[in-house]
């Protein structure tokens, strides 16, 4: 009976949450009738955490770019020389991990042997085994991962946008680092990071599937041990409000120029306000340039944009920005048109019926997330790692009005907050 139950009638879902004595937060969404169960175990350690005070030290250190991602790869190494995938495979489970700007998450999905897989997930992530030899081997593998992204024009255009938006914020650094930076990683660096950030109080585990919450708690309790942990101190550089550069360009082997128009959001939020901002910004972008907007219609019909056009919102505790991107033969012209559209909305405001319709469609996409155990697990894990209770969605959603749109338009989508990133086709 360790769980707090929160049932959301309109969604037909119940979230069970509990805090283990180690500080690990546990979240379960039971999904009756689903074949697959998904579990994700995450820590608040991402590519932006490159400057911190290590556990047991009073002096801060800076670690090489790409270390969080490197550590993620190395967690799979087991003391007996095998790798953590082996046991998952034995149970027919699919295991993986990913590193984002802010988090590292370890996950699996299975259709049988859930208890065994779940125990394995918790236990291998709590057993680091780093040696100089296995680090060298990984440099070859990750080196190829980095090369793969170098050839991905969409990745390049997105990262260049972040480089244009941010002067100091480490979000501008590639998640995997560079071939050069990862060559500086050794086992001491990895242990320093691990001991500081892989601390149950800094972590979250989320499970979605046909499972009993109490059973999840029992397995956590038996697997995760109480030890002394320090407080995590991450250090972030000061970020000026102004963008770094207005325009950035690169070349890559792509068919048509790719672009991202980015806007820096300097008003960082926490908790419910962070969720509120994410929802409101997503609705705002759809209202301005979604598939039913006048902006989309005009530029799609004239052929300036095509089906690749899309918008994106990234709202985190330590950075926030929004973007409009896709393929376009003349990105500068498109950006001018977008800025004119924004000015027009500033002048005449938003149509209330249109706003309500888009808001309704957005609600649909939220409910849809609960059709899939992976989406549920990731949604819960990502938000809870930022201390955001995503199940507050229905209440927060209902407080967002047409006036919220106007406020955000004037606050975020301004000329001085904007940048343009373009990738031109290489010969």
């Amino acid at each position, binding site marked *: 009976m360790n769980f707090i139950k929160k049932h959301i009638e309109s*969604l*037909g879902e119940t979230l069970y949450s509990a805090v283990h004595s180690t500080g690990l937060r546990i979240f379960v969404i039971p*999904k009756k*009738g*689903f*074949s*697959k169960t998904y579990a994700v175990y995450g820590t608040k350690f991402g590519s932006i955490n490159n400057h911190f005070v290590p556990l047991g030290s009073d002096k801060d250190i800076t670690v090489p770019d790409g270390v969080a991602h490197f550590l993620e790869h190395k967690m799979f190494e087991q003391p007996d020389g095998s790798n953590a*995938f082996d046991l*998952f*495979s*034995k*149970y*027919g*489970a*699919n295991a993986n991990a990913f590193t984002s700007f802010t988090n590292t998450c370890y996950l699996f*999905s299975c*259709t*049988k042997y859930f208890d065994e897989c779940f125990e394995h997930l918790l236990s291998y992530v709590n057993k680091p085994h780093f040696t100089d030899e296995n680090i060298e*081997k990984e*440099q*070859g*593998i990750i080196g*190829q*991962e980095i*090369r*793969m992204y*170098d*050839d*991905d*024009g*969409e990745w390049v255009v997105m990262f260049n946008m972040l480089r244009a938006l941010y002067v100091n914020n480490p979000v501008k650094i590639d998640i995997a680092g560079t071939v050069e930076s990862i060559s500086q990683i050794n086992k001491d660096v990895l242990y320093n990071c691990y001991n500081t950030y892989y601390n149950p109080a800094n972590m979250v585990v989320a499970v979605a599937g046909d499972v009993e919450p109490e059973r999840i708690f029992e397995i956590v309790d038996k697997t995760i041990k109480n030890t002394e942990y320090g407080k995590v101190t991450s250090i972030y550089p000061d970020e000026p409000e102004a963008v770094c550069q207005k325009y950035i360009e690169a070349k890559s*082997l*792509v*068919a*048509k120029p790719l672009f991202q128009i980015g806007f820096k959001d300097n008003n960082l939020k926490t908790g419910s306000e962070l969720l509120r901002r994410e929802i409101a910004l997503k609705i705002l972008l759809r209202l301005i340039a*979604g*598939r*039913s907007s006048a902006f*989309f*219609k005009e530029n*799609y*019909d004239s*052929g300036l944009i*095509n*089906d*690749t056009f899309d918008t994106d919102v990234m709202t985190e505790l330590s950075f926030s920005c929004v973007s409009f991107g896709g*393929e376009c033969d003349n990105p500068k012209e498109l950006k001018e048109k977008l800025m004119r559209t924004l000015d027009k909305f500033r002048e005449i405001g938003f149509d209330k019926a249109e706003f309500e*319709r*888009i808001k*309704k*469609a957005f*609600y*649909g*996409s939220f*409910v*849809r997330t*609960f*059709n899939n*155990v992976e989406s549920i697990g990731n949604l819960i894990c990502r938000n809870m790692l930022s201390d955001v209770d995503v199940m507050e969605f229905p209440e927060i959603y209902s407080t967002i009005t047409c006036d919220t749109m106007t406020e955000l338009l004037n606050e975020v989508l301004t000329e001085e907050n904007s940048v343009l990133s373009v990738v031109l086709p*290489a010969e």
Partner: protein
Amino acid sequence: MNSVKKHKISDNINLYIIDDTKYKTVYFSTHLYRTLKREETTLNSLLSKVLKCGTQKYQSMNALNIYAEELYGCIYDVGVSKKANLQSIVSSVNVLSDKYTGESCETKALELMLDLLFKPYVKEESFCREFVDNQKDNLRDDIDSLINDKRSYANVRCIEEMCKGEANSVVEIGYKEDIDSIDEKLLYSHYKNIILNSPIDIFVVGDIDENLILKSIKAYLYEFSFDIKPVLIEYTGKDVREINYVEDNLNVNQGKLAMGLRTGINIENPLYYALLVGNSILGSGAHSKLFNNVREKLSLCYYAYSRLDKYNSLMLIGSGIEFDNYQKTRDAICEEIENVKSGNFTDDELEVAKEYIISSYRSYEDTPALLVDYYISLTYTPSLKTLSQASECVRSVTKDDVLKAFENVRLDTVYFLNGKEEQA
């Protein structure tokens, strides 16, 4: 496991219903089958794009998008896909279940899905010219932008070189050089030619009222005079004479290796499940030989995998590597193929591969689109198994079966996407 209920609507029009309360959504799709032909593929591909531009009721893409938003942001699409020698034009709508909206969006979504295919926006015996011109440009963009994803580009190039001249190698997206000659009149006359005489499957997955759906679909299709001849699935596959080596030099940072093999075994062959298990031992999953040896031991790549084309008896192996490691990687992959062929794998590897496949079959049930895709293969290959029968077939595969299946596996084409001279 989920059961699928089949209802015959009329000759060569069937409705398949998978009734399951666990989903938040109802997924509707209609599949119209054509025989894949070079002279028709671009027409079908462009047609699917134009059908998305408007219906009789919602006469522009903008009007359709507004309507979709009113239905709680239902997701609609029309596209083409390919299985063996069949090209299908597919319209689909994924809508929130009425349980979660308190409105009746489901029947509206069903009608929208049917309208997209059967009641397009038409003026004076022609599609709208602006729609067609715009979508011709978009289709050119789609075809060109294949290069943006180097991994799939290498795979497509490998298959293209390997299957030159084979009927099933025609691509479903169409050909750029065939776009120019199509106009709104020609496209509409093609539409008229195919809409009433091609076999149709309709799928509905979700928590639905079966009788209501059946009645609505029958009523909707009643006004059309269908005269449909069945199309037959045909498999291709040929023998390997000698290994074909192909290289492209492009401005890339990483080399992409794609190796095409002939298996001699298609989905109707009794050895298919043994081939599937062998393929998993070789390169499908983190337990596989390619993952553990080519990636983990030799540290040559971030990814290396193999997958099967179950219709055309092909196997494709892909990896992204340093340009200089081409020979080394190719040799390492060939060694792993030989290892499977010669039975150089443990009982554990065999069992793990089987468990992996069975588990992925089970997980299909959680994703309506995957379920539909599986059941479509079933409708055209009657000898094929339901998911639980297929799982049983996998379960009973022995080491000898894998060896027998792999006896026929032969390397046919090695494609390498290399850098330009100054980089390589």
